[in-house]
């Protein structure tokens, strides 16, 4: 009693702001489906179906004088529009059969960062045929397998398709941006990598203390009280894979396995006790590796999961906060694009996926993906207001303006364990800033 009065009287307690949260993860959930020999072709069918419907309607505005035909209907020297899915033929793309080939190949060595090669070729496919694409307009390094495109051009004598113009699906439509009269922040963090050597617990504890309102003076705490949600975008835990050798685990090894998870749980408990928290699985987390990754099981976090503020989410993760649409991944989609195409910055990849209207075009080709039969959940129907990608090398952000007054904040969230940076986004104006935590005295 007495202490409370003291504390209340002396220190003012800030009340944390609240925001209305609505999870839109439903379409990424795989409910009790079992593998019954599904093939991946159905995803491509579904994708093509979606994109063609979309592109057809666009083509009528784009090139009203041209006819849209199928690949098999191509005629030499006749300008037309074809719609289909890109396939990128890559010399260096690793193939599982390479291991078994008896001949030594003359294929050059793979470069460390990606599988690009100057000889890479683009091919357009629709349900019934495929055609090689040529033309300087189409730079193979910009594209990856799985994108839906509409191409304007004509068939050459060699049987290739000479591309004169191209149309992407473009920015998805966006509902009108809500207006907020006050500052409300969402904090993104990813790549905690608890359990690895690079994880600095003190650094993350600083983060926790800051967000939960332990650190800082009145000004700081006032600001942090405006944080309405924390999103952890993957790679919270590193599981020591050396322990998993297919044999029964010794108790000691079991401890090695569970220790990092428990540590995360303790940290998350502190967070969840103060602020709503979304945790998404990432490539290193104890979840399925195929996209969409299903929510981390609650029993992994017995402490944190008892809070109503703890949300274990899918990856990709989509939600609505006070009317703002959020979409994000733990980074696999962008990392895979980085392997099979090139861009100046990671943000460019992110922007491309938005223009292609597909979160993970390389799935299922080079990115693991559940064999959906009815739908392609990665198709982006509505333009989010915030599009974040976790586990990137550095913090980058840009506010994109679409042709129809769309506004999208793209955020690359750096790995916290390496950079000590979390990202704070203000819902009011979609402005972003980095939160830098440093527990290193020398720096």
């Amino acid at each position: 009693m007495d202490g409370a009065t003291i504390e209340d009287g002396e220190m003012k307690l800030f009340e944390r702001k609240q925001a209305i949260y609505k999870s839109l993860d439903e379409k990424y959930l795989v409910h009790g489906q079992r593998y019954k020999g599904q093939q991946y072709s159905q995803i491509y069918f579904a994708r093509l179906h979606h994109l063609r419907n979309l592109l057809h309607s666009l083509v009528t505005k784009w090139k009203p004088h041209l006819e849209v035909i199928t690949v098999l209907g191509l005629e030499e020297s006749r300008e037309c529009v074809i719609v289909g899915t890109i396939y990128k033929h890559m010399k260096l793309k690793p193939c599982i059969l390479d291991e078994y080939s008896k001949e030594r190949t003359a294929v050059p060595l793979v470069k460390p960062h990606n599988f690009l090669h100057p000889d890479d070729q683009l091919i357009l496919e629709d349900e019934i045929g495929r055609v090689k694409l040529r033309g300087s307009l189409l730079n193979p390094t910009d594209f990856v397998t799985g994108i839906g495109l509409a191409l304007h051009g004509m068939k050459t004598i060699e049987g290739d398709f000479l591309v004169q113009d191209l149309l992407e699906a473009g920015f998805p439509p966006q509902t009108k941006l809500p207006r907020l009269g006050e500052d409300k922040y969402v904090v993104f963090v990813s790549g905690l990598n608890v359990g690895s050597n690079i994880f600095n617990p003190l650094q993350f504890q600083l983060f926790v203390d800051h967000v939960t309102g332990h650190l800082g003076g009145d000004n700081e705490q006032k600001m942090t009280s405006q944080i309405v949600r924390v999103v952890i975008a993957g790679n919270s835990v590193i599981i020591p894979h050396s322990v998993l050798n297919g044999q029964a685990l010794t108790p000691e090894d079991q401890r090695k396995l569970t220790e990092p998870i428990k540590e995360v749980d303790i940290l998350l408990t502190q967070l969840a006790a103060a602020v709503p928290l979304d945790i998404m699985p990432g490539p290193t987390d104890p979840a399925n590796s195929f996209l969409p990754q299903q929510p981390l099981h609650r029993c992994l976090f017995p402490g944190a999961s008892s809070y109503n503020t703890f949300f274990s989410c899918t990856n990709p993760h989509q939600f609505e906060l006070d009317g703002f649409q959020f979409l994000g991944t733990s980074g696999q989609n962008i990392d895979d694009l980085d392997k099979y195409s090139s861009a100046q910055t990671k943000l460019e990849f992110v922007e491309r996926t938005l223009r292609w209207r597909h979160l993970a075009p390389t799935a299922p080709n080079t990115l693991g993906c559940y064999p959906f039969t009815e739908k392609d959940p990665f198709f982006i129907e509505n333009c989010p207001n915030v599009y974040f990608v976790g586990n990137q090398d550095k913090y980058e952000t840009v506010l994109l303006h679409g042709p129809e007054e769309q506004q999208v904040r793209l955020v690359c969230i750096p790995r916290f364990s390496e950079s000590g940076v979390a990202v704070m986004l203000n819902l009011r104006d979609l402005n972003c800033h980095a939160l830098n935590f440093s527990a290193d005295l020398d720096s």
Partner: protein
Amino acid sequence: MLAVEALEILGQIQVLVIDKLQVVRISWSLFLFQSPYLLAEIACFTMDRLIHLFFPLGQINLLRFQVSYKWLSRKFSVSSNQAKKLLREFVDKHGNNLEVLYSLSGWLKNSSGTYCIRLASGKKLEEVMKEFDGTCSVEVYSIQSCLPRDLAVLWNAEFVQAEELFNQPSTVENCLRNNRFGGISNCFVKRAVNGQSAAVSSTSQLKDNVGIVQTKASNVTKDENLQPQQENRGQFGVKEELKSSSTVGSIDKTNQNVGEYTKKTHPVKESSNPLQAKRKGIPNEKTSTGPGGSLATLWGRASVKSKPSSMASRSTCDIAIAANTADAQICAEEAADAESSDEEGYKLCYKRESNGSSTRKRQFIINYSDEEDDDDNVVSLASPIPPKEKSFSDTMQSAENLNVEKEILCTNKLERETLVNKQDIDDKSHGLSSEKSSIANASFQKAENNFQNDLASANGKDTAPMASKRKKVVKTRIDERGREVTEVVWDEPVCSKDADKDKTTNDARPTAAIKEQATASNAPPNTGIKGGTKKPLKGGGKDTKQGKILSFFKKI
């Protein structure tokens, strides 16, 4: 190896030191709760003690001690902001001997739009501050004897603490789980306990404060000298042979008058409550008394300790109240009521929680209240989490220190008292309390040679005449390991149930004596209960090094 050993030693010493500090702080805080500033002083004082205790050992350089604000906050149940303030004040006073780690937060100058939170050592503070854009907040993050090479070490102590809190049964509400020490409250956070959701932060703070009072119990218990006497008391309580013990008898005589007086004031409740207490008390005793003689000692110790620590602080006032004119009493009671009303609220809240939880057995709650919870009490007693006892060597050491501390305590108490009750009581209470204590001392010394003066004085205060009622008091404390232990104890309040807990606690022993005469049956169970309660508590508080005591509990 050396490092490890050093760490171990450090750990033990820290525990010791902290224990003692807690005694001081808690008793003080009883007086001072209303004044944050005073509270701050206390904590500073405890920090002073900490340093003093380190220096005499001559190992300040070898021993690495670190106190981070968060650790302090959890340890002493103050808010983080307060803890930081305390550290700041301490650094201002003693900064020379310490390495201070500051946390800075603010916007960085050179990079646009980067908000930075970083740590900096005291030497580099100025330098680092230049990196910030204009105003940045600077706060003491931790103080330590030397900066560790890897700062992650700093985090360890905190994490150990957090882990302990985390490992408590899920039904227990603690500061880790409700973030009550943070500067931001979020009333929308709910925690599901066994399927039921409970508000996380609503009542937590109050509980904590109540808990503070309790912490002493374990600390005080360390004195081995006390044991014999305590033993007697405990047994007496059970057997209702108060008169046989000289100490008690003498106390009775001295206090009798006062006791009667107080009794008269609240005759109605007395009749009913004692019965309840008895009802309750008996089962409790049984559960806790398994091992017989040793148990009795435990009891005795526990009872003495538990009461003195928490009561001692207020005892002076109480004595004064009891013995003095009606005016004085009324004033005091009013004050007490004001304080206790809050507490009452807590009690209620707390109860709700505990009842709701189905996993009571695993809780750290020791519930000695009667009413609806009879069965529960038995259960909780029977299967508490194995308490850990501090090693006896520790207790020995601590005993010495304790005495010193006690003295300080007494003097401080007097001072504080004046602050709290600004009425004319002051003079009287001063005079009276000292008088009483001296009397008590004399009597005690006669009876028990072992008794040390300071201890006796403390006890003497406790033995001041008390009212006749019992009430349930919920006490929560954070033990050395950072766990919150909550217990529900029967106390005899002076007036209504709302009466101040402290008062009631103070009265406990004397009341027993008084009741002996008046309602012979009731008093003994009460003391017994208290002894019993303390035991598990104390056990819970200490480190696990001793197996025997643990096993003892298991048998029960």
